[in-house]
């Protein structure tokens, strides 16, 4: 199966190891991975700041770059949600053809490839559920709704030998990243992140994993500032390391 990689701009520039791990995980499952090099950014930073007019050309660019691929996969729930749920407000019906073809990585592994993770990763890992993956892509059922319990990411990771995936008391509270929110409301944002870290510390985890590098970047920034020993690891890296072991 051919898979076109959609690598969010900040992952491309700042966290290339997350993109590389995504490639490894997909190739290990027999996918032919391609990376359309003309891609840049989905436009979410502009759209979430209210500047739809500035985001629209980027949505159009995204369509031009990816329209010829059947399966577009990104290691980010938030950027996928932008394309799937918010492009219609920017470019109308033209978004329809793309909406069903763009997948968050775990969603793709779980729903399309049906290929859960294997291997060994013997550590206590805190599980951070990023909001857009959870509530906009429904990667999990979420604590707010009264619906049958499901969790695609956990289901994907459950077969990894030795992995102890720890839940926090508030299972899906936001970490406070929120894009420009992290800057506009820096005090609240940081406090939200420190509260999340505090919950993970209670579980004595050595790592925090999640589907979105943006949340992890924020948590990592706080962990490093506070000289905490906990590290962050994107779920693609966790799977790649487990399967290479």
């Amino acid at each position, binding site marked *: 199966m051919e898979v076109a990689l959609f690598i969010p701009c900040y992952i491309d*520039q700042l966290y290339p190891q997350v993109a590389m791990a995504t490639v490894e995980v997909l190739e290990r499952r027999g996918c032919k991975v391609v990376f359309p090099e003309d891609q*840049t950014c989905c436009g979410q930073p502009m759209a979430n700041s209210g500047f739809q007019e*500035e985001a629209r050309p980027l949505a159009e660019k995204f369509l031009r770059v990816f329209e010829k691929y059947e399966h577009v996969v990104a290691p980010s729930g938030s950027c996928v949600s932008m394309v799937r749920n918010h492009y219609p407000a920017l470019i109308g019906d033209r978004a329809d053809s793309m909406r069903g073809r763009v997948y968050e990585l775990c969603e793709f592994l779980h729903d399309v490839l049906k290929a859960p993770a294997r291997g060994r990763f013997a550590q206590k890992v805190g599980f951070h559920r990023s*909001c857009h993956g959870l509530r906009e892509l429904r990667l999990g059922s979420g604590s707010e709704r009264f619906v049958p319990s499901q969790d695609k990411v956990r289901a994907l990771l459950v077969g990894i030998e030795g992995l102890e995936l720890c839940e926090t008391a508030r299972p899906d509270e936001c970490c406070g990243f929120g894009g*420009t929110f992290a800057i506009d409301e820096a005090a609240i944002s*940081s406090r939200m992140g420190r509260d999340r870290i505090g919950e993970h510390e209670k579980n004595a985890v050595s790592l925090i994993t999640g589907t979105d590098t943006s949340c992890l970047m924020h948590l990592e920034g706080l962990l490093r500032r506070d000289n905490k020993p906990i590290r962050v690891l994107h779920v693609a890296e966790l799977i790649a390391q487990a399967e290479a072991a």
Partner: protein
Amino acid sequence: MNEHAQNATVFLRDEARSAWHDNAVWWVRQKRDRAQHSVPEWEELRSLAQRIKAHALSRLADYLEEFERNARALGAHVHWARNADEHNRIVHGILRDHGVQRLVKSKSMLTEECHLNPYLIERGIEVVDTDLGERIVQLLREPPSHIVMPAIHLKKEDIGELFHVQLGTPKGVSDPKALTEAARHHLRSKFLAAQAGLTGVNFAIAETGGLVVCTNEGNADLGVALPPLHIACMGVEKIVPRQQDLGVFLRLLARSATGQSITTYSAHFHGPRPGGELHIVIVDHGRSKLLARSEFRRSLSCIRCGACLNTCPVYRRSGGHSYGVTVPGPIGSVLAPSIDAEKHAALPFASSLCGSCTDVCPVRIDLHHQLLAWRGEIAAQGLLPPDKSIGARVGRIVLSHTWLYRMVGSLARFALRVLPRGILYSRLNAWGLSRELPVPPAKSFRAQWRARGKP
């Protein structure tokens, strides 16, 4: 820094107290979760409530007129107010005509929104809020910080001190039972002396002309049972078409608000009591403007349960007063810009867009999408600081050209590596105030991909 961010920063300075506030409000969210899990058809109820409200709003004028006819037939007087000012004048006029000097009020966010209390007090009327939380903030001369729990920002010790000064309780007493008993005695004398009672309205039933008022303290009931004059103030959106619709909303309201299966008192008023008068004041105050906007219309379905406040990680950590409006939290940040977009331009940005509000909302208002829509509206009206629009334009230009994006990316990574810490972490870097910046890799992913020898 915008006003909400400034207020939030101040609120968070007292770390212990803001953590206490976060936990106190989260506790209510957890109670709500437990109550919800006692109703297997919860999600269906939400959908039903959403559809009933959408229907009612789709023919609001008809239902309002039907309500007016039926309420009049039951013997009530019905008044129409276009805005807060008309509302206040009408209420004052009714009180003046009846020679009322002393008024007791149950909780009404609408009258808070209209600033009725100061209006009446300036005109020589004693106004006593009889909901315990409302009375506490009234004695403190503060606005409520939550729409269901007006004094949730206060600790029992704060209230003990307030009651010691205002109601003469012994100094140092902070036992909730003793304080409630003191408030009860204090309020009892106010109830007995009142010449009129004012209530809000939770639901107005078009087919009967009746009203439902929900309280946990019975203060609405007592407040209108003793004096002969009852004034009920409602926003135009409080209409439900049929009596039987209450079976949906009353089940959702209390569970969403406080985790109770039902509010302690759900009082139904069908016309005035024998020998009394009932005046219903129906207020627009910006609501028909929202109704006219398809993207914001659903916010008028709100039943003011407060669940979106309780779940909001921003509300819990910034406190209700940080929003500077009567209705704070996600729903308040959607409603406020419709009254004055310029004044409240920061509120739709006081959210991480986590979407928890949308998922707790008992009437399925897509709150976080409406916050996003308001951001667009506020930017389009030119109400954001110029650095924001310049930043967005530069971002668009850079990201539209792949070569430029690559070049700027390389430069940014280079700068992150070589610039001295004093420059990287200057005061202009809001990210860096309490967080480290990412450690930049030498090569971007796309450079590494090429090096891998693939096309």
